[in-house]
């Protein structure tokens, strides 16, 4: 295809007035001065209301005795499109398969929630959480203990009362 050149026609200097645009902008400013907007949320005094489907940083569900529910099946690192999960499986002293190493790089994660969807034992979940500030970058690689400590609510990828969105 041939290259076409679009020529911008600008008004010549001194031939145009910005008065109309300035007045338009100022009128909006004055409108907000007398009638403040209700959109702004006074964070952090006020907390936002997150959607039940909000997909934030992960958490790992645990059994009543404190063991992680994960059985190291390897489906989440397989399905993860960002390749952010590192998993090394092993066997504990009761003969159960469990993750020796389970790490999620939250920087690399794209929060698609497929790890939660694929998990056969409902162990790994994305969470309703967004406050993740840290002082160092390496703190964003969450290891198994850190994932088990997280106490924010898990994401509902679908409404249990209406699983098919009907």
């Amino acid at each position, binding site marked *: 295809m041939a290259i076409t050149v679009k020529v911008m026609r600008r008004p010549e200097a001194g031939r145009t007035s910005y008065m109309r645009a300035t007045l338009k902008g100022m009128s909006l400013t004055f409108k907000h001065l007398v009638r403040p907007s209700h959109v702004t949320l006074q964070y952090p005094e006020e907390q936002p209301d997150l959607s039940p489907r909000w997909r934030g940083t992960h958490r790992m569900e645990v059994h009543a005795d404190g063991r992680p529910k994960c059985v190291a099946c390897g489906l989440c690192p*397989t399905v993860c499109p960002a390749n952010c999960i590192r998993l090394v*499986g092993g066997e504990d002293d009761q003969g159960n*398969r469990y993750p020796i190493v389970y790490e999620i790089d939250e920087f690399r994660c794209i929060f698609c929630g497929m790890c939660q969807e694929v998990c056969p034992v409902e162990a790994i979940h994305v969470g309703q959480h967004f406050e993740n500030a840290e002082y160092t970058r390496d703190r964003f690689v969450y290891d198994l203990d850190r994932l088990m400590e997280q106490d924010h609510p898990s994401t509902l990828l679908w409404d249990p009362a209406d699983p098919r969105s009907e």
Partner: protein
Amino acid sequence: MPDNGPRADTVTLTIDGREVTVPRGTSLLHAAETQGTTVPHYCYHPGLSAPAQCRICLVEVEGAPKLQPSCVTMAEDGQVVHTDSPAARRMRQGVLEFYLVNHPLDCPICDMSGECKLQDYVFDEGREHGRGREPKRVFGRDDFGGDVLYYGDRCVMCTRCVRFMDEVARDSRLTVVERGSRAVIDTFFDSGLEGASFAGNVVDICPVGALVSKDFLHKARAWDLDHTPSVCTSCSQGCNIELHTRDNLVQRLMPRENQEVNGHWMCDYGRANYEWMNRPGRLEAPMAGRGGERRAVDWKTALEHLFVRLQGGTGDVMVVGSAEASNEGLAALGWVGEAVGTVSARVFRSPRADDEEPLPGYPLLVRRRDLAPNVDGAGLLGFERAGDDTGAGGLEAVAGHDGIVLVLGDGLADQDVRFGASAGLFVYLGSFDSPAARNADYVLPVTTFAEEEGSFVNAQGRVQRFWPGLRPPGSARPAWLVLGALAAALQGGRTPASAAEVFAGLEAGCAAFAGLSYDAIGESGVRLEAVHG
């Protein structure tokens, strides 16, 4: 029907609407395979007898009153077979449902997941939801000894493992005990499979996750593994294997079918001998200078300086090869030696076991005395065996030689630090450093067989190729490339770009390999006798 005339050697039948001609005595299952249809099967294995007890390979044969087990029904002239008719499909779905009555749904924690036949068949044809209401019976797991672990709940009672031990290993250590839903595989005595040399094969042939390898347990998922065709290096039988790799580490070795070498099998010694391929502490950069003067250099510097030294070298050349090096590496080593001067010694050392150990039910497969893959190749390339049966000694003349000494692949484990001290030029090519390489003027890192392309000659005189499954560490390069470049520079030729080019040079220069090419060898190898009559 009276049968008076001579019978034809082939039969023609129709399978799923397509006409197939197969040799007489072929089972329907095989005949279907020739036209691209795989009939599901558990108890049938091409290397074992067929008891027709799993009932999942039943197919519809027109005229037969009931569905026929395709693994034992022989193809006949004019048969019309439907492997995928509604009756056959319905039957398979029913059989699979019965299998799942007691089979646990523990695919997430099962080591076989991803290569499990039950998983595959149920995914293809099984019911979407189970209808069982009763609790499943639970056996737990049993340690069979050796490397084998048995999960009774997952077993589908195909008895392949029992038949392997009876028919192929001829060492009946497994049997079925109890009946019906209580049936399990068990060992006779406390020893179990401990000490059986070929028992690891039962793990390979188990179609489900009932028999698993302790070594591989929980190590990797089947779908994460890359498979590379290769040749086992544990003895001179050269069993065809696959390297299963993940994260640039060999995770396990599996036999690869080759009916002329190892059938479907391999020995446990070879199967377990892979950790050295993952061993850290490798030589990663070329180094120049003797003893304390040793320093890392880049390949260009190392080879250019070495080339100058070799050109100006005096005295005769002594060459130490290795039966673990490829034909290409050994040939190139010889070329360098010949290009420099007279080769007065051309030796290799290799440990030997006390006895051979054949697989009784498959006599072609023998665990050989020579515990290195390329003893015969080294012999064909003019290398002579030195040293004793432990792979030590025999290098007295080389150790004190005052000419040029070239060592490839021999770790020199038994030699002391004075080795090569009086040599005019001592070049050591290896994967691992050695105290005896202290006096080497040049230490050049080369790859192992798992990281390079090449070929071995096994004890049957069969040339077999292998392929790289791992990335080499640092700047290690294949021996054929390093030595091929040197030989080309010394003789004024072209640096080989691939192992195939080195082999082509070998084919032209060595009568034993005449007429062969990499393409002709392929994945299954070629017997030298077959080429030369």
